[in-house]
């Protein structure tokens, strides 16, 4: 480890390829950056030397192959998922995780007493967890024209993790899943059998099909009817389905307390 005197801040463009390129550069030049930050997050820093990393796809690809070969595919997965968390300091944890990883190989995931190993694993876990949760909580609505639309506001950048699942499941439908927080969306076409991520402004709302309201009403009726009154337990309900996800649901949790059947 040379050059520790000359402390550097790596700035990358915010993409995953960008992060991999930055990491590649650090390992290649045998530098330990004091920070690695996305361009959008960067605030002017007087004390350290700034290094702007230009994203290069070949380098990123090469580096991820190296991780797979010398550490493990699981580690590569953890890194990608931790990246999707967009958490503060995530890049540096990844750097240190890899630093140990290149030394000890795939055993790095057993180093649970090391702070940075745990941090990366925890972040990755949180991202996977939210993605799994949303696979259930996303609600599609039929828009005029027979396409389906869903809005979400996830904590993490989970769209790309969910897309393959929904492609598999709704392969014969055209659909859009809209991340309103990040103003992007996954769009899938049944004819092309492919999905891609596009920019989509927050205000976008499609016009719904004629029968959509009827189906939604049926669902609400079902949801209220299946809850057993003398077992009412709103706390467990919130524990599994936190309120932050309620906004884009069709059903209204808590409604059975007002709803009566016959």
């Amino acid at each position: 480890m040379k050059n520790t005197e000359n402390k550097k801040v790596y700035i990358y463009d915010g993409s995953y390829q960008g992060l991999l390129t930055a990491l590649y550069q650090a390992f290649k030049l045998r530098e330990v950056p004091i920070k690695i930050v996305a361009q959008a997050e960067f605030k002017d820093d007087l004390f350290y030397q700034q290094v702007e990393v230009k994203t290069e796809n070949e380098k990123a690809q090469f580096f991820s192959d190296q991780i797979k070969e010398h550490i493990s595919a699981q580690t590569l997965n953890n890194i990608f998922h931790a990246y999707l968390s967009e958490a503060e300091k995530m890049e540096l944890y990844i750097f240190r995780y890899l630093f140990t990883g290149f030394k000890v190989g795939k055993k790095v995931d057993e180093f649970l007493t090391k702070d940075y190993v745990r941090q990366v694993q925890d972040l990755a876990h949180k991202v996977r967890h939210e993605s799994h949760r949303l696979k259930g909580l996303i609600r599609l609505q039929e828009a005029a024209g027979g396409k389906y639309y869903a809005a979400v506001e996830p904590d993490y950048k989970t769209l790309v993790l969910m897309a393959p699942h929904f492609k598999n499941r709704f392969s014969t439908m055209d659909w859009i899943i809209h991340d309103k927080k990040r103003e992007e969306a996954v769009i899938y076409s049944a004819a092309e059998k492919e999905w891609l991520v596009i920019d989509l402004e927050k205000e976008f709302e499609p016009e719904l099909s004629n029968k959509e309201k009827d189906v939604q009403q049926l669902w609400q009726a079902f949801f209220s009817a299946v809850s057993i009154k003398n077992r009412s337990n709103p706390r467990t309900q919130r524990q599994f389905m936190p309120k932050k996800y309620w906004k884009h649901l069709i059903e209204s949790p808590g409604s059975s307390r007002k709803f009566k059947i016959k």
Partner: protein
Amino acid sequence: MELQKKLEILSDAAKYDVSCSSSGSSGRGDGSSLGNTKAAGICHSWTDDGRCVSLLKILFTNYCIYDCHYCVNRASNDRARASFTPEEVAKLTVDFYKRNYIEGLFLSSAVSRDPDWTMERLLKTVQLLRNKYNYQGYIHLKAIPGADFKLIYQAGLLADRMSVNIELPSESSLEKLAPQKKKAGILAPMKGIGAGIENNIIERKKYKVKDKFVPAGQSTQLIVGASPESDRQIISLSEGLYDHFNLKRVYYSAYLPVNNSSLLPTLPGPPLKREHRLYQADWLLRFYGFKADELLTPGRENFDLKIDPKADWALNNLDKFPLEVNTADYEMLLRVPGIGPRSAAKIVKARKEKTLTHYNLKKMRIVLKRANFFITCDGKYAAAVPFESSVIYDRLAENECQQLSLFGSSSGSDESSKSWDLEKAE
């Protein structure tokens, strides 16, 4: 009758069946059809009673010829009745599925006209879904006891999971509370499905038969508290079902007084805590390598409501503890109260790198609240109480009491938690 009204009546009538899982089956979809299944299962919503909604759980009809005392749909009950048509159920399932409301369909039914007729309707519905709508999502189907096994078998080739509910844990209770049902009628289809699953697995391997028969396995449900059976009888029955009938799951349903019948006990509320204890014990059987006769022995018929079955076991086998986490087998780690498969795996991994201390465990997010009383780390015992059964018991019960407010807190009808409150007040 309007569809919405039917849906309200028939989902309301089906809600007492507690089975909800959508797991165990994977990769039905082939890219040209609607839907697929995920091995891990997905929950789509949670009702106000905290149970998950994974499947569209409905009865095909609630017109019933039987008059079982514990059931809301018994023939002599004055209730709103309705029946779907197979087309209505299929359409509804597809409409909900396309909007990602549900993971699939759970179709059950009261026995209307006769068992064969009812089973035929269920079969028709599933055929419509699979063939006409090209639907490849999850289907959980009830096998109707007493129906021709050929019908059940055909349905099994299209469904992911099938179940027959035993409901009452002993033959004498069945006779008393459901006199028109026979034990043989319930067990025969279960045995048939179990054998069918096994044969199908062999056939698929040997002869490359493509059709899967009930790939997600079969399950059943027992009602707890409607009849006098003890926890020991119930848990041994479950063990038998897992071992001999190849069941995937046994569900327990705390008895809710839905009817007035002199044959039924009057309870202040559903025995939710007892149900919880049975589920805990069930998990111990399936994932922790326990045997039913380790958990309860003749003479100790019921679980302690104040502490969980695993802690109870540990206190009765205190000679095996405290356990040194750095050297104990994985199997023994699993038996420490508060340590589950995930924590045990973490410990086994991490201790390869270094000798673990309490601080390490804490950092690894291993919950020590209960485990602390039963482990040593590098020879150190860190629970601030003497290693004595009665002292630990009190501490565990205290912890549990705070935690258990999660279960049935708002209803306040849980008999056991009430008596606990009284004790505290004194």
